[in-house]
């Protein structure tokens, strides 16, 4: 098992490096000159040329790429073209905010999504089932900035329960996290419901029932554990969506996270920030997926043995 984890960690390094190369290529190919963006349109051609030289923008592509990777390995992610400050500092201060937001969103999604999915499955075709599947469809379809604004109007403006902007307290994370969780929550409801339905039809469930197990132990112990596998996969995959989906939410709720930093950096061709931000997100996402894979091992002994076989 330990060997498996080490192998996965090794692969993660390659993934992050691969992503860094792709992003570097894309940033080099898109139009827009960082020197002009920094100096502004009224700068003279001489000033622009001087800055380009200073920033090393005239070096060949691979020289620039390997320079960057070399520095990165020393922990130097370079300075932002826009602010001149070390990139690492800015990302380090904003990344936890985005992570907290994504984690809380995932928590809400699972907290509501899984139980509702289970209940829908147990009471298939009942009123509860109908309501929850309809709401799931609604949450999956509504654009998240619309949902965000609605939640803001109802819970912040009218009911004064939560603040609308910023991240001063735990309360400020609630509305944005709820908004962010909507899509995943809907997915989890439907996913849990369908896997539970399938599992409940299995022979071993019938066996358990005939052996006299209580309905509760059947659902929670026997059925849920098997149904959870695909659900946990969804959680892992959706975490990536959540990390990326924070951009709009951060904009609507004025949250200083990685999303807004990344968008501004991409627009201004602030390559060091873009590179570092995307690599951090890639790293976070890879770690979440690794965690999900490890959790599999604990839920399903068959998978654990597969890991150990390697």
């Amino acid at each position, binding site marked *: 098992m330990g060997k498996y984890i080490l192998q996965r960690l090794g692969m993660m390094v390659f993934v992050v490096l691969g992503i860094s190369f792709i992003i570097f290529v894309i940033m080099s190919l*898109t*139009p*827009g*000159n960082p020197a*002009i*963006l920094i100096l*502004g*349109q*009224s*700068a*003279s051609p001489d*000033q622009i040329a001087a800055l380009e030289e200073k920033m090393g923008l005239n070096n060949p592509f691979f020289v620039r790429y390997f320079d960057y990777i070399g520095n990165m390995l020393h922990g130097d992610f370079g300075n932002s073209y*826009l*602010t*001149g*400050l070390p990139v690492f500092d*800015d990302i380090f*201060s*904003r990344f936890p905010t985005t992570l907290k937001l994504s984690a809380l969103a995932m928590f809400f999604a699972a*907290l*509501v999504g899984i*139980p509702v999915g289970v*209940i829908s499955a*147990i009471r298939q075709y009942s009123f509860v089932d109908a309501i929850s599947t309809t709401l799931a469809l609604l949450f999956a379809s509504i654009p998240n900035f619309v949902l965000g*604004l609605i939640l*803001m*109007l109802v819970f*912040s*403006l009218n009911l*004064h*329960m*939560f*603040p*609308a*902007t*910023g*991240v*001063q*307290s*735990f*309360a*400020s994370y*609630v509305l944005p996290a709820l908004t962010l969780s909507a899509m995943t929550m809907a997915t989890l409801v439907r996913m849990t419901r369908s896997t539970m339905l399938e599992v409940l039809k299995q022979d071993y469930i019938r066996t358990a029932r005939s052996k006299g197990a*209580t*309905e*509760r132990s059947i*659902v929670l112990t026997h059925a849920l554990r098997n149904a959870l596998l695909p659900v946990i996969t969804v959680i892992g995959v959706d975490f990536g969506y959540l990390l990326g989906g924070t951009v709009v939410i951060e*904009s*609507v*709720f*004025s*949250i*200083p*996270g990685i999303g*807004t*930093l990344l968008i*501004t950096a991409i*627009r*201004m*061709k602030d390559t060091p920030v873009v590179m570092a931000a995307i690599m951090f997100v890639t790293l976070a996402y890879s770690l979440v997926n690794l965690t999900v894979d490890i959790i599999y091992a604990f839920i399903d002994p068959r998978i654990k043995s597969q890991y150990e076989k390697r």
Partner: protein
Amino acid sequence: MLQSTKKKWVQVLAVSLTLSMVLFGFTACGGSSKSDTSKTRDDLVFATANEPNSLDPMAIANMSTFTITYAIYDNLVEENSDGEYVPSLAKKVDISKDGLTYTFTLNKGVKFHDGSEMTADDVVFSINRTIKKGWAFDMTAFIKSVKKVDDYTVKMTLNRPFDGMLGSLASPFFSIMSKSYLQKNGDTSVERKPMGTGAYKFVSWKSGDNITLEANEDYFKGAPSIKKVVFKPITDKDTGLVALQNGEIDAFLNINNSDIQTVKDDSNLAFYSTNQTAVLSLIMNTEVKPLNNEKVRQAINYAINKDDIIQGALEGVGTAANSAIAPTCSGYSKDVTGYSFSTDKAKALLKEAGYKSINLKIKLKEDSKNQKVAQIIQSNLKQVGINVEIETMEAGAYSNDVYVNGNYDMTITSWFAMFPDAYSLLYSQFHKDCYGSTGNITHVRDNTLSADLDAAAEASGDAKIAAYNKVAQYLNDHAYVAPLVYENTTITTNAKLKGVEANPLGVYKVKNFSWK
């Protein structure tokens, strides 16, 4: 239902309820609402349109950031509420009869926030820095030299008279900085840690979250009433409105036009509005066929229905433009004849020019308001046989095409003046020396126009209005641009905030605000 399932359901419900109560418990302490103010507040939360990219006035990319620098820095002179330029760091300004020599007598004992005294050295240093940085070239072009006479006297010599010199000196580009601070900490230090003489000292900048300033109790004009100012970036206008109504922020600029009535009806909020020092215009690349034909450009001017634009794209807010000069800029006159809407005249002109149908492209930066404007223009021009395609581009690509390479037919922008003077609006856009990325993207190289612009810059008083009248009329007659709408700039604040006035540039002096 089975007893066990019912029990299970109750348990799930119980767990969810408990968790929700825990959550609400957190929120009870967290959710702050500033709507009840039993004692007078001494802080202000001011929303900016974007996260500032820098606090160095010479490096700022967004107009709203200048509100922050105006709080931290002072200038030699400043504009008062009547639009006059009154002493600030300079207690006296003597201008020679020929308008070429400005002598500034500085106030003594004015301290920078680090305790050092502001003297002539700092003034000379700051002005020379502004000249070197190049951004304010249209203002610094008039300055021949600036020299220290003694510790409290500075002499500035111009190479031509310039009526807008005081206005320029009052603009953010001429903020007075500390020579010793910059020399000790490096030129870029002021981007994140500004050092000024202003009413507010810089305290902290939490990236993406807020910039905090505190009152300078030793401010030479008297400590400001509000003791702490927090600037928060809020990009979404709907969020801005909610935050205002919630009491989370005290001031927000340029709310959605559709929300103006809501704000006016809310007794907790106050709304201020004035014309912008910018003109929403359709810019035509006069080097591209058939836009190089004056009759075609005139036809386009006639074909556009400005009222449609105001109603359709701007929610009815704004006035039709008659000239390329905004009403709040000195030099503006109502007497300049613009183009009234006439499809017939447009068609006739196109026929004279020999065109039956024309295909043109409008390139736009991602900006939803101008999208609607473009669509209306597209349908207006279709009526006269001009087929317009609208292309929306990412900012870097747009800048490359339109500004750097001049590779475009038409675009829609509002060029902002840095101080309320027709010079600041027109020079960079239409003078032949500013061809290309420095501002003249219409690519107009007209000697008469350039000479007239130069002459107007030197005029003052009634002669100035006459001179700019001539320029504006010339621009209209040759249809070098199609001015569309004079838009409004607004500020919405907590109704209890005093001392607020709408500012045409959208830049505010928070040192003048106070709480009722």
